[in-house]
């Protein structure tokens, strides 16, 4: 299988879907002439022209609302947020408009759009540019939320998101744009709501998504050396959640550590932990451990930033606590 970059996988997904369906278009800041702030849309203007690859002014609420209105008419906008830190500006449009369109119109109108872009902390960017804000969307009925952890998943998931008839929020780890992975040349789609076991194991279930999957896999390797066989489960879609996959793993391993890059309270992770403690109570041999960002705005200095973000060390320690070892 060819190895490509995460950003290339996303690019392929968009290009293929735009070739398939003339109703799909891409809109956002610097997506066209600049080829994307992170080069995700590289070459797309050349291929599809300015009608379908559209540079916008810096008005996130305005052009996202425009996308929602276009979706209401049956077009399939992909609206790019340069980063999701700026997407806080579109929450009213997404929560009060996109998410409620189908319900409030009694099924007359729907909103087949994708809101996508970079999330997470890319390093040295400080408090306003280093946030993992998936909880703001995953909390909201009417939205769907996807966060891929590999180029393979990114491509298949984004294709599903574009084809879906509901508003999908698709958050890509900014740090991962330059990471490589195998991606099949033939067409494939990864259905919304389908999780994936990223590593089989028996002693403990690590639940995570996006970039943190890799931290978990590293932790699992480290633990393997010490004789512990850890399973790593990636829900991939955070709403709707592949609960059965998660529960089955937990019922097998009886121990759980949840790892997320976002803040700990009222987070996606705590949402998942809540479901697991409820549905797997009798199987749990230890409290569910939670590794998240420290509960603070992000500092700029690298020594501080390093402390804030979950890392292999913290994940390993949490696993050991959950396994009652050390």
């Amino acid at each position, binding site marked *: 299988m060819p190895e490509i970059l995460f950003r290339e996988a996303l690019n392929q997904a968009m290009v293929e879907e735009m070739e398939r369906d003339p109703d799909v*278009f891409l809109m956002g800041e610097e997506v066209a002439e600049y080829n994307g702030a992170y080069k995700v849309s590289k070459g797309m203007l050349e291929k599809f022209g300015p*009608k379908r690859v559209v540079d*916008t*002014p810096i*008005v996130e*609420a*305005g*052009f*996202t*609302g*425009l*996308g*929602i*209105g*276009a*979706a*209401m*008419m*049956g*077009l399939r*906008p992909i609206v790019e947020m340069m980063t999701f830190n700026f997407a806080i500006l579109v929450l*009213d*449009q997404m929560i*009060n*408009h996109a998410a409620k369109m*189908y*319900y*409030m*119109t*009694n*099924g*007359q*109108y*729907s909103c*087949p759009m994708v809101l996508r872009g970079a999330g997470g902390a890319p390093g040295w960017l400080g408090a306003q540019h280093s946030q993992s804000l998936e909880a703001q969307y995953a909390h909201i*009925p*009417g939205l*769907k939320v996807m966060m891929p952890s590999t180029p393979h998943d990114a491509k298949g998931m984004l294709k599903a998101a574009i084809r*879906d*008839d*509901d508003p999908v929020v698709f958050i890509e780890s900014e740090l991962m744009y330059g990471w490589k992975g195998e991606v099949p040349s033939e067409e494939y789609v990864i259905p*919304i709501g389908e999780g994936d076991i990223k590593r089989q194991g028996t002693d403990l279930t690590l639940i995570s998504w996006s970039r943190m999957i890799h931290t978990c896999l590293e932790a699992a390797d480290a633990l393997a050396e010490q004789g512990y066989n850890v399973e790593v489960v990636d829900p991939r879609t955070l709403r*709707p959640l592949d609960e059965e996959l998660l529960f089955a793993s937990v019922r097998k391993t009886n121990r759980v550590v949840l790892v997320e890059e976002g803040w700990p309270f009222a987070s996606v992770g705590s949402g998942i932990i809540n479901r697991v403690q409820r549905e797997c109570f009798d199987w749990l041999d230890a409290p569910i451990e939670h590794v998240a960002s420290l509960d603070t705005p992000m500092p700029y200095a690298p020594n501080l930033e390093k402390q804030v973000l979950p890392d292999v060390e913290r994940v390993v320690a949490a696993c050991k606590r959950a396994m009652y070892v050390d």
Partner: protein
Amino acid sequence: MSDTLNTTDLTNEQLVEAYRRMLLIRRVEENAGRAYQMQKFSGFCHLYIGQEAVAVATSTAMRDDDYMMTAYREHGQAMSRGVSADSVMAELLGRKTGSTGGRGGSMHIFDKERNFLGGWGIVGGQIPLATGVAWAIKYREEPKVIVVFFGEGSLHQGVFHESLNLASLWDLPIVYLCENNKYAMGTEMSRISAVSDLRKKAVSYDMEAAQIDGQDFFAAYNGIKEAIDRARNESRPTFLDVRTYRFRGHSMSDPATYRTKDELTEEQERDPLGFLYNALVELGAATEEELEGYDKECKKEAKAALKKAEDAPFPDDDSVLDYIYVNP
């Protein structure tokens, strides 16, 4: 009046039809107000009484396959597009037979068949959406237009400005129609706007703008028609400051003590229904008897709509989780 006395391209028949529609809106809203007071429903109920000419002039100037989008004071606007009294009243009462099946409610009437795109409750929130509808029209190269309504209290919201810039920049076929009824809840316009001539808002976007008397049906029709034609023929947006007035409070719970009785009386003397009534008689388009007859019909229709709504069932209990996702 007589200087605008049918300066439009409308026939007498069309004018009579417009009058009947305005009348029906008035009567249905009056019934809605009464039904609210009798606690047949609750929540917010924003009546359109006093503003009927604006919606009906707009709908008269629109084609069937054009789009209308608006905010929460939308019962009359919906009916101007042909949404029935029955389905509006049933919606207010939260019934299954309502325009959104009792699921949307008083602020959220939608009717896909009539291209009526709601019915939105976040002040200003619908403006970028409507801009997106215009985008879609242009993307598909259709000869259509969208008219989006909002109150004069809404145009300080950021999304209004973001939208107008986009629409002008990208030449979108849209009419931004500000229904300027002087008040946003209890706030008179001069207390929240740094300018009193709202056409100045369009200057920032090199957009055509006009101020229109919304109580004079002919002036309203002509001004709005011009903007719609511009959108359709030139794919250029227009901003309209349409001067009107609401005769009732902001919503049913508002006693409207922020304005004087005199002001209200003065405005009621410019009742758009009275204006068109007189014009029709003067034009010989209808006799007073005919017009009174229409009124009786509308009253009956409005009353019947309420009765039908009351008799209609609520949505099925087990439908509560329907329509959250198209692809659940």
